[in-house]
């Protein structure tokens, strides 16, 4: 098979090479668009001392929350972590280091990591605890702080469809941080609901071009809903 078949057929192959102490960037917002099975594989691998970068850390028993059960995460970089009792417990006990990062800054740090931008200025967080110790500079009379890029040894991504080149599309708001994570991993692994043939995705509508993607795996997903809000007819 030629060099562009990025499809792997086992989760063991998908996460091969993950080691203790590595940094893993994960897509997803809350439980929406999270790489459920890649996370489960990390649990199975029992690697420890991970730095995990993700907007949230799942809930007890699902999503990134399962990596807390065996204390696999050493450092968590996230914007909101309030949905998870085990997380609270490990944070309060000091077992888990937490680096809270504003959501937009987190997204931009991932993008910057993938885009060869080592650092950028942003107004977000100036004058707050987030700005402490960071360089401040004025542009046009307004103060900004310097924020650095984030890169991962692995990026784990949940998408809708992919072809064997690793071209990817996401479904609805399950896109969120996934395309950014995808750019920032030394090894980027995407799990999808559907594999398609090259040419089936319109080139203009590809959300993540295959150049960012190293491995693709077909998965089955629970897609748990955090807050089911409905209206009645």
């Amino acid at each position: 098979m030629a060099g562009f078949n990025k499809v792997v057929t086992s989760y063991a192959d998908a996460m091969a090479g993950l080691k203790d102490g590595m940094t893993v960037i994960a897509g997803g917002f809350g439980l929406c668009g999270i790489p459920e099975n890649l996370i489960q594989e990390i649990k199975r691998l029992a690697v420890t001392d991970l730095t995990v970068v993700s907007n949230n850390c799942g809930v007890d028993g699902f999503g990134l929350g399962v990596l807390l059960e065996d204390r696999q995460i050493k450092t968590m970089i996230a914007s909101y972590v309030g949905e998870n009792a085990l997380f609270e417990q490990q944070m309060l006990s000091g077992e888990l280091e937490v680096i809270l990062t504003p959501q937009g800054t987190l997204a931009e740090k991932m993008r910057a990591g993938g885009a060869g931008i080592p650092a950028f200025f942003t107004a977000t967080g100036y004058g707050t605890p987030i700005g402490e110790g960071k360089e401040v500079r004025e542009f046009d009379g307004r103060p900004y702080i310097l924020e650095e890029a984030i890169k991962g040894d692995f990026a784990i991504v949940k998408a809708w469809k992919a072809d064997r080149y690793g071209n990817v599309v996401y479904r609805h708001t399950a896109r969120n941080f996934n395309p950014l994570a995808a750019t920032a991993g030394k090894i980027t692994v995407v799990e999808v609901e559907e594999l398609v043939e090259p040419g089936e995705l319109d080139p203009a509508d590809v959300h993540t071009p295959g150049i960012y993607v190293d491995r693709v795996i077909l998965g089955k997903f629970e897609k748990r809903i955090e807050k089911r809000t409905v209206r009645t007819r």
Partner: protein
Amino acid sequence: MALTREQMAQRVAQEIQDGSYVNLGIGIPTLVANYIPDGIEVMLQSENGLLGMGRYPYEDEVDADMINAGKETVTAIDGAAIFDSAESFAMIRGGHVDLTVLGAFEVDVNGNIASWMIPGKLIKGMGGAMDLVAGAENIICTMTHASKHGESKLLSQCELPLTGAGCIRRVLTDLAFLEIKDGAFHLLERAPGVSVEDISRLTAGKLIIPDHVPEMQLDA
């Protein structure tokens, strides 16, 4: 009488302009969407990556892949756009959102806002709040005027760690609608039946009271 949460949402909704892009935070701000007047077309931005957020889904429309920033299942209107989180915060940080409505623990006379962290209590994180307050030109802060113990939340200087510095211009509390400028709260309107004296007593920061302070006009 202090405003109910619904009345606060109703008053904020009156500030929304036709053809504007609006980000509504969690809590009272979310309720604002229910009171947008007929004939006013608004595009709701949800910072998880949705411009043109619609109503909650019917049971048979529920889709785990379609949620808002509060992680609630939602729908998208015709003419919506969906994008990634970097694009979403490019909009917010870049000042493209016309109005942001969000809650707070404290605000002060210099437009500082504290809304995300109470030392000694569990820290859940700031989510997108720091980006929203840094990016929007136009923010309305919704909050109760004072704590249950009668301690003012409109201060000379925020005591809690800040979410943003010098970024809040308008505050809608359960007692009053106020503008922040020149180092003071300027009383614009009072809740129906609430006296200027009550507001003054519960405002710790410098308060400018004009000769006439109209009552808010609320439907129903």
